[in-house]
């Protein structure tokens, strides 16, 4: 075994192979930095080469890219609050908060170190779990996967502390949106309104970019300032290192959660990363320095460590069972097949060298990737000090391009715009968006594993399986503890100081507080909550037309959502009577509303242009005008900016197989 490991390392250190590894790392980093382009984008870049080079080199190339995509996707999440990928949305909580306080360097250094450690631990975990993985995966049946999705969804409640009702409504809305498309257990297509485009369901990247990215762009353009306050880009790198060393247990725990989320087919990187964040937050001590949601280093370490090790764990089902967990793994599988290597139970005995090549490549790529990210982030950290409207011109184009990639249907642009509006409305009326995303990601797995469990087992069979019992305990024990604590607090508090927290909240720790930014007046909150109620009611009615196995879950979700929304409305109406209107706040809100409306008008204009001219020409018109009118840049700066942006887009189209939306009047030479 050691022989195989060493000879694989020797082969990897061959200059050509090493060059391919570095090339893969560079491709992965670049794709990771561009918001919304993740693993699939990296695959598109690498595909043309994979089938023409030597097997070892192709492996090094693919693994190099896969290992680092989630290192560099952190950068835009942390610095500008635009998710670099769906799983990097988690960094917008603590990572971006830290950057907003001018500690971008600290946040990034934490992220890269944790990423590197996660990658290395992932490589170690990959090696160690090869003999264990098969029995463990086989013991993890549908009931366990079902419980795991339930556990994941319960994170929605954890992440809405201090705002429980609104958080749960958002989670239910995510579940509902996730149900669009083919039902897992029946031949029905749900909530598609007769369009082929929606049959496939909404794409996660487009949803994440809409609900977080577009919403962020719109409200930041309104403020016209830079993202970070204060100065001091270069400082904080050392602090970051110390943070990681102090919280080394979170590095380990994050990596552990990540590896398993990768190993188990059907969980996915986004859910795995959020689970890692959830466990860190759930187990953090309540007293003292708990600043989760406000820039706690542990809120960066755990998910960053996890999202790199997810990719390592993901290789196990690919290699041992021939089941790829995502696009990059599918590419790896395809490449292995072409080279005559058959993933499956025999790979350990027949191709141990291949496994070690993969392990070494992964470890090496993690280190190189993190080092390169450090270098890159010095210039990139300045981004958070640029006036936002200047960034927005290009970001609008990039966000819509990225969201377009998966479905390649122009209608997705309208969906993103709509989700952007919903995201902004949620943000300004205090509906947390993290529970929404968790609901969206786990919606289909929850339903799938529910039906598989219910069909394949009797209740007593599955409910008493040890794995299920353990997870049920993890789910229930905190609730019991919380109830006990609440009861004690209630007993102790005999008319003394009131504890913070509104009606319906569980034990209040002041995690989230109010989201920053101008808050909407109560009437708006009322309207948004009413809107959710209408959506759930509509969903309920539509769901009644589906066949039995496609109907149950949407019906339950809609009933739950409608009940929560109705309750929230009642609470709001009740508290509103007591609230007095605040003149200053009303004026500030009006001003904000005006700006946001204008920002949306710009976006609508851009989408309209894309429909007519296609993306390239639309950007050619939109970007200069936007930079001139909104960002008030100088002509030569506008020209350079536009040319560079278009150049990058066309290069990506030409060499990275990135699809650019085509309009009614796009000249044929711009169509690839």
């Amino acid at each position: 075994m050691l022989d195989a490991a060493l000879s694989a390392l020797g082969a990897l250190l061959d200059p050509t192979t090493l060059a391919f590894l570095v090339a893969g790392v560079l491709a992965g980093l670049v794709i990771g930095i561009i918001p919304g382009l993740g693993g699939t984008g990296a695959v598109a870049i690498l595909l043309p080469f994979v089938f023409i080079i030597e097997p070892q080199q192709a492996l090094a190339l693919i693994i190099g890219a896969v290992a680092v995509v989630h290192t560099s996707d952190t950068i835009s999440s942390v610095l500008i609050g635009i998710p670099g990928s769906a799983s990097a949305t988690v960094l917008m909580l603590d990572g971006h908060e830290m950057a907003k306080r001018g500690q971008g360097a600290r946040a990034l250094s934490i992220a890269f170190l944790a990423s590197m450690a996660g990658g290395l631990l992932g490589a170690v975990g990959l090696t160690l779990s090869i003999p264990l993985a098969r029995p463990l995966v086989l013991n993890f049946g549908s009931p366990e996967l079902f419980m795991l999705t339930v556990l994941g969804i319960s994170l929605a409640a954890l992440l809405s502390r201090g705002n429980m009702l609104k958080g749960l409504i958002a989670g239910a809305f995510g579940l509902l949106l996730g149900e669009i498309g083919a039902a897992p257990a029946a031949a029905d297509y749900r909530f598609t309104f007769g369009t082929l485009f929606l049959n496939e369901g909404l794409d996660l990247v487009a949803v994440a970019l809409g609900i977080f990215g577009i919403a962020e762009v719109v409200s930041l353009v309104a403020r016209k300032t830079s993202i970070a306050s204060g100065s001091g880009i270069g400082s904080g790198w050392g602090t970051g290192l110390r943070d990681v060393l102090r919280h080394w247990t979170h590095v380990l725990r994050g990596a552990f959660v990540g590896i398993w989320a990768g190993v188990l087919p059907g969980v996915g990187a986004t859910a795995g990363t959020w689970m890692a964040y959830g466990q860190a937050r759930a187990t953090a001590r309540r007293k003292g320095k708990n600043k989760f949601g406000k820039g706690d280093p542990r809120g960066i370490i755990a998910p960053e460590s996890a999202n790199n090790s997810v990719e390592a764990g993901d290789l196990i089902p690919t290699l041992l069972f021939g089941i790829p967990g995502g696009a990059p793994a599918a590419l790896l599988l395809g490449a292995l097949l072409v080279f005559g290597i058959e993933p499956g139970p025999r790979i350990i005995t027949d191709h141990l060298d291949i496994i070690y090549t993969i392990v070494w490549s992964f470890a090496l790529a993690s280190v190189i990737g993190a080092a390169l990210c450090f270098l890159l982030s010095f210039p990139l950290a300045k981004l958070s000090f640029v006036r936002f409207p200047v960034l927005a011109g290009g970001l609008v184009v990039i966000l819509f391009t990225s969201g377009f990639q998966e479905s390649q249907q122009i209608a997705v642009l309208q969906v993103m715009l709509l989700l952007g509006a919903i995201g902004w409305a949620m943000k300004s009326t205090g509906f947390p968006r993290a529970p929404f995303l968790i609901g969206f990601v786990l919606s289909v797995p929850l339903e799938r594993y529910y039906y598989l469990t219910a069909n394949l087992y009797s209740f007593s069979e599955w409910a008493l399986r040890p794995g299920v019992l353990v997870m049920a305990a993890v789910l229930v024990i905190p609730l019991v503890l919380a109830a006990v604590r609440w009861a004690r607090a209630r007993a102790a508090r005999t008319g003394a100081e009131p504890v913070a927290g509104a009606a319906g909240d569980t034990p209040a720790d002041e995690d989230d507080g109010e989201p920053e930014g101008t808050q909407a007046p109560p009437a708006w909150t009322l309207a948004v909550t009413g809107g959710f109620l209408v959506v759930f009611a509509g969903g309920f009615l539509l769901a009644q037309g589906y066949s039995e196995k496609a109907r149950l879950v949407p019906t339950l979700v809609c009933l739950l959502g409608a009940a929560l929304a109705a309750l929230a409305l009642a609470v709001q109406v009740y508290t509103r009577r007591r609230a007095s209107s605040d003149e200053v706040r009303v004026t500030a809100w009006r001003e904000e509303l005006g700006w946001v409306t204008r920002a949306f008008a710009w976006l609508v204009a851009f989408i309209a242009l894309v429909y007519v001219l296609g993306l390239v020409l639309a950007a050619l018109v939109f970007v200069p005008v936007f930079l001139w009118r909104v960002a008030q840049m100088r002509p030569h700066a506008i020209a350079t900016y536009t040319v560079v942006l278009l150049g990058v887009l066309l290069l990506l189209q030409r060499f990275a197989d990135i699809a650019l939306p085509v309009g009614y009047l796009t000249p044929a030479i711009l169509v690839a």
Partner: protein
Amino acid sequence: MKRTTMFGSRAKAVVATMAALGLAAGCANPQGLGSGGSESSSEMPARTELVIPYSEGGGTDTWARFLAPYLEKHVEGNPAFTPKNVPGGESITGSNQFVQSGGTDGSQVLVTSGTTYFQALLGRSEVQFDFTRLRPLILNGTGGVIYASPSTGIRSAGDLADLKKPLTYGGISATGLDLTMLQAFDVLGTKLDATFGFEGRGPARLAFERGEVNVDYQTTSAYLTQVKPLVDDGKAVPLMSFGMLKDGEIVRDPNVPDLPTVEEVYRQLHGKAPSGEAYEAYRAFLVPGYVYQKGLWANEGTPDPIVQSYRDAADKISKDPKFASSSEEVLGGYPLYSGEEAEEELQEAFRIKPEVREYTLDMLKKSYDVTLEGN
């Protein structure tokens, strides 16, 4: 527009390389709606796009990308092949786009798989392509093996006659490639207790290994790599294969020569050759679904010389020594057919009789409580 001046000389290269592509993409409507295609010329274009209605890295995508360099070498005129993935809508999206705007000058060809065919055969309302009119260029088949768990007491296919309990099967969706499995059991008259909703054949196989289901099928290549080791350990019992087509007859699959075909098992159980509606329906889906599962197609009206150069290439590629040595794993040892050989059988399969389609939809409804929308 000052586009050309802005992009400078690099644009010229782009323009040059994309000129042919521009023709290929035809008019520039979003999603290629409306009438497309340029004047048919019987000359082979310099570049040809492989329109793949499946996502990057999947089975069909790998097949097409593996084949591309050999096509480049052996198709007359040596066009450069660039893959273009248009995934979504169970491959309907990309295939619709191809028939609308793919043109007839050979600058785009469509890559298909069984799922694409089944959508047409089941009469899904969104389908705008008609495989009786499209022209098959090169085809490649696959096979499938059905196996069961020893816990069922089954030692060979003959034991299917006296089963105490219906076998449990895990599928993805009753209207996808699982359909052939359901039809095979319908032919045999053996009851199947099927659960749909698995993410893929891989997770379904894991469920078999865990004992959650006790009968399963895999494509032959997955069977040989993933299931054969289980068979050797006594954890799985192979029952039968879908076989392959030879001179219009289903014969044993040469990759698993010891396994009887579904037809042989029927004869063993019922003492006569299979016939009737159930068997007709099974055959109607088997031929496009497995025998010619992967294919390259051109639009109706593509000039004969272009079609012919692809068909000729099928034979040349098969004889390419490099192809022969490396194709085993990717193609699973199944031969490439030229469209000429397959055209008749495919046309027959796609001229599916309304009563056969009706029977199939009825079977899905009665046995599996599955109703297709719009039917």
